[in-house]
């Protein structure tokens, strides 16, 4: 009884904090239609900032609270909405998920940048009034902090109810959900309300972060703290992202369940308790998704989405694949071993990213845990796909195929509950799966016995995976493995393009564009979704296996959910509709970021006086993926679209193309012969790619114009210098400044216009 009471009360406390975080999610989702994946990261940032102010600088608690909760958090929320989330109107569901994920990753790297992860003295985060300020309730000793947390949860529940029922802004927030246009016709400002709700949501996240950090009692880690609040997703889902009372119930159930597990399955007797306890929120999230009622079939989003992808022809795909293999082969000859390994790692990641191109780019569904399928594949290969031992150990082709099949089956199990639901729910199901794999499967490092069979899933916490041998080909050497990975990527990429041109691919596109129309043509949408998810999981599995083979030995950090998210984010940035987007993602993540950071570090050590500057740049680069991710709202079709468009110009001009290829071969030959070193190779290549096209383009255009007897146009900044101003120029400038297009200053304060309106016409 004593145990029951104690853990019940603790469960209520934890549940209360979950509710605070979850209510923030509900508030922002209802008013802006964006699920704030960054909620956990905001909580984490707030906890770190509070720690800094309270103990780092020694401010008194009330002042620190006022700063973090009263000023910084709401400000952060408001700025987030105004600068980033507002632009997501009219984008696809994929972009609406990716951008908040990008924000989350950005905050994470920001926190590890500011609060260097390994301080000399561990950061201690104390409870309010300290750990010794306790009272006894029903024979249970509780700290004041826990009591405060629980009552705050109740106060907040009441406060939100009051806001939504008794204040005009709160009622207007509910009105926005009903009909934002009508609210505007009433004179309300939906944008302002959404900003307000994001400020409120960030406040709630921050409060949850500050409350739960000392309750959990572990050392402060950015990743762990972020995931802690992600647990609240399950509670929010319990209320279907709408109902606050149901969210409250969900949060309390979650809090109680996790505490009863500790109470009744003590860790000293049950080795799986810790892992199971931390997995409960994700298991619960999964269960909730299972029981949610079916969504109505979505109609087309013709007018609403801005994303556009043009499919390359199969011939273009073959040429591109061939070019890739040749380029990698050429690079290989001039690269050091470490560089070859880094590039191979990047390309195996690109294969994983290809699974996302198929799933997200072609079919419009989302997988937030691609690497977790890689982990499953790796485990299968480790147990069933290796022949030989020691130095002679090789991965077998059958092992790789088995891994693909198992991943497909696991993928089906993960996707099944969410297939009837909208994309966001499938995304959350995959995330639950990813966290579950990290917390429950990859922690299975010891030996277990079940039905007389002894096994250990993730033996010793680190698996050694050898390189493959397929038929007569041995890929043990770094060179050969790089070429294997490249060829596999190229073949899969061409395979995907040809799939997209097949009738299966057309059916995927049709499903993505209008599930409702597909159903009325007799398509079983659920079956098609399932098949593509399975295929995608299999590709991710194979990519993961190859990644593990490249690395040689892998631990659970290699399959972290956050890495999956970075890969997804970069693929979307590159262009989720294209195989080249996957290459962009893998190579950027696996190689370029590292390469840039290494370069900057090297420069820093070369020029001691500027070391601080370069150190700053190294950190800044780590925030880069997230930074470019959050710009997606403005350019949802990805970078590849831009690159392809710029390439169009080159393709049209044969002389230019030939010049560039010639130059590039020359640069490579010089490097190969050792005339120039690799740094120069990189710099010359960049120059060739970036400077030659516009320069050559301008030259060619001028030549063409001269031939036609027309003066080349003078660039705008030289007008008035190269030739005198004309009236047309003045008009153009006024137009560019918007001077001719503002008959009424509507953005000016209201009374000005009205006074103007009263003036005689």
């Amino acid at each position, binding site marked *: 009884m004593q145990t029951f009471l104690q853990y019940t009360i603790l469960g209520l406390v934890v549940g209360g904090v979950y509710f605070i975080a979850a209510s923030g999610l509900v508030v922002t989702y209802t008013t802006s239609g964006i699920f704030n994946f960054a909620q956990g990261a905001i909580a984490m940032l707030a906890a770190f900032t509070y720690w800094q102010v309270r103990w780092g600088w020694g401010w008194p608690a009330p002042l620190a609270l006022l700063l973090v909760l009263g000023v910084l958090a709401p400000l952060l929320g408001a700025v987030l909405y105004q600068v980033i989330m507002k632009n997501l109107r009219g984008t696809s569901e994929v972009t609406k998920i990716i951008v908040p994920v990008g924000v989350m990753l950005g905050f994470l790297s920001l926190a590890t940048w500011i609060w260097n992860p390994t301080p000399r003295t561990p950061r201690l985060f104390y409870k309010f009034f300290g750990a010794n300020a306790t009272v006894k309730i029903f024979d249970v000793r509780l700290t004041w902090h826990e009591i405060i947390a629980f009552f705050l949860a109740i106060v907040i529940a009441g406060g939100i109810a009051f806001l939504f029922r008794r204040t005009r802004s709160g009622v207007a927030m509910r009105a926005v959900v009903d009909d934002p246009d009508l609210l505007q016709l009433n004179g309300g400002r939906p944008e302002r309300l959404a900003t307000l709700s994001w400020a409120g949501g960030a406040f709630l996240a921050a409060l949850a972060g500050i409350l739960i950090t000392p309750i959990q009692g572990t050392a402060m880690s950015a990743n762990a703290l972020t995931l802690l609040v992600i647990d609240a997703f399950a509670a929010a889902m319990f209320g279907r992202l709408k109902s606050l009372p149901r969210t409250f119930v969900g949060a309390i159930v979650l809090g109680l369940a996790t505490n009863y597990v500790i109470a009744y399955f003590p860790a000293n007797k049950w080795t799986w308790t810790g892992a199971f306890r931390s997995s409960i929120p994700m298991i619960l999230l999964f269960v909730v998704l299972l029981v949610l009622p079916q969504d*109505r*079939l979505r*109609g*087309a989003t*013709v007018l609403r989405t801005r994303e556009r*992808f043009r*499919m390359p022809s199969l011939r273009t795909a073959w040429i591109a694949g061939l070019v890739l293999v040749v380029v990698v082969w050429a690079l290989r000859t001039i690269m050091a071993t470490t560089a070859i390994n880094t590039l191979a790692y990047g390309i195996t990641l690109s294969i994983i990213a290809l699974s996302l191109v198929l799933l997200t780019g072609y079919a419009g569904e989302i997988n937030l845990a691609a690497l977790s399928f890689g982990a499953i594949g790796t485990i299968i290969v480790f147990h069933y796909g290796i022949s030989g031992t020691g130095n002679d150990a090789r991965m077998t082709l059958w092992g790789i195929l088995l891994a693909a099949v198992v991943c497909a089956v696991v993928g089906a199990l993960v996707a099944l509950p969410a297939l009837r639901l909208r994309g966001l729910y499938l995304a959350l199901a995959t995330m639950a799966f990813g966290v579950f794999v990290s917390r429950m499967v990859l922690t299975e490092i010891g030996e277990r016995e079940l039905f007389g069979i002894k096994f250990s899933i993730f033996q010793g916490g680190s698996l050694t995976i050898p390189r493959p041998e397929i038929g007569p080909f041995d890929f043990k050497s770094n060179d050969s493995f790089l070429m294997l990975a490249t060829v596999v990527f190229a073949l899969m990429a061409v395979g995907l393009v040809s799939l997209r041109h097949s*009738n299966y691919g*057309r*059916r995927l*596109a*049709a499903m*993505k*564009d*209008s599930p*409702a*129309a*597909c*159903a*009325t*043509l*007799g*398509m*079983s*949408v659920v079956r098609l979704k399932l098949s593509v998810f399975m295929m995608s999981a299999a590709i991710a599995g194979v990519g993961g296996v190859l990644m593990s083979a490249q690395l040689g030995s892998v631990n659970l950090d290699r399959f972290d959910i956050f890495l999956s998210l970075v890969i997804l984010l970069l693929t979307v940035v590159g262009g989720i509709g294209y195989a080249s987007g996957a290459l962009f993602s893998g190579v950027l993540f696996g190689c370029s970021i590292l390469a840039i950071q290494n370069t900057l570090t090297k420069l820093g050590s070369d020029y001691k006086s500027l070391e601080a500057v370069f150190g700053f740049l190294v950190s800044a680069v780590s925030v880069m993926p997230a930074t470019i991710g959050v710009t997606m709202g403005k350019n949802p079709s990805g970078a590849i679209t831009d690159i392809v468009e710029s390439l169009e110009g080159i393709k049209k001009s044969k002389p230019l193309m030939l010049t560039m290829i010639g130059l590039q071969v020359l640069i490579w030959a010089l490097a190969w012969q050792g005339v120039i070193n690799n740094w120069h190779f990189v710099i010359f290549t960049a120059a060739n790619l970036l400077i030659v096209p516009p320069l050559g383009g301008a030259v060619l255009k001028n030549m063409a114009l001269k031939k036609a007897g027309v003066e080349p146009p003078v660039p705008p900044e030289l007008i008035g210098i190269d030739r005198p101003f004309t009236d047309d120029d003045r008009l153009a400038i006024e137009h560019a400044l918007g001077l001719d297009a503002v008959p009424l200053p509507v953005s000016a304060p209201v009374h000005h216009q009205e006074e103007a309106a009263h003036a005689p016409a």
Partner: protein
Amino acid sequence: MPLLETVDVKVRFGGNVALDDVSISVEPASITGLIGPNGAGKTTLFNAITGLQSLSGGRVMLNGRDVTKLPPHKRARQGLARTFQRLELFTSLSVRDNVRVAGEIRNRWGLGGGRMDTNAEADRIIDLVGLRDVADREVGEIPTGQARVVELARALMIKPTLLLLDEPASGQTEDETEAFGHLLGRLAAEDGLGICLVEHDMALVMNVCETIHVLEFGRMIASGTADEVRNDPAVIDAYLGAPESVG
């Protein structure tokens, strides 16, 4: 036996009754019109028939078989096809592929045998409806009037016996509408299709429809031939408002 019969179909949205005991039927080789003022529930009725909208009461019968409990794709496999008032085209595909993919979906129905050569069939239908000139364009680039014809072509690809058309002529020019009327007539007469047409272009409806049902406030207020409906006082009131209702 009628191809389609709705029996006392009822649909409620919250407290509002969108359809109240609506019973219509569509016969083979005939064109039936469904007209009524805005908000009368015509599109809702189509959604209820195709299974995109669940019923609060009543039944939907296709070929004498009760399909009320079947999901949309299974109803389609009974020979039911439709177009949408708010275009539901596959925007990442070209006009030809929009049509072709419908045939490819049909090939996956699992009926055994009966597979079509989707390329040839798509070409035949594109010629039939007169889309050859725009066949290789992106669907997002063509005008609405033609986009509606693409929807019709796509629906025809699954070789339906019953075709529901939701405002197919809106956005079409007068010439296009006239050609469209002829096409519908041919589909009914030559291929024996049962067609149900929701349309606001009264000239089109009055010209091609043998039977016209009139909906108002989710209820059926009149049925009959074009002349009967045109002269029905209830219909005139529905469209112009009852004369005695002012002051």
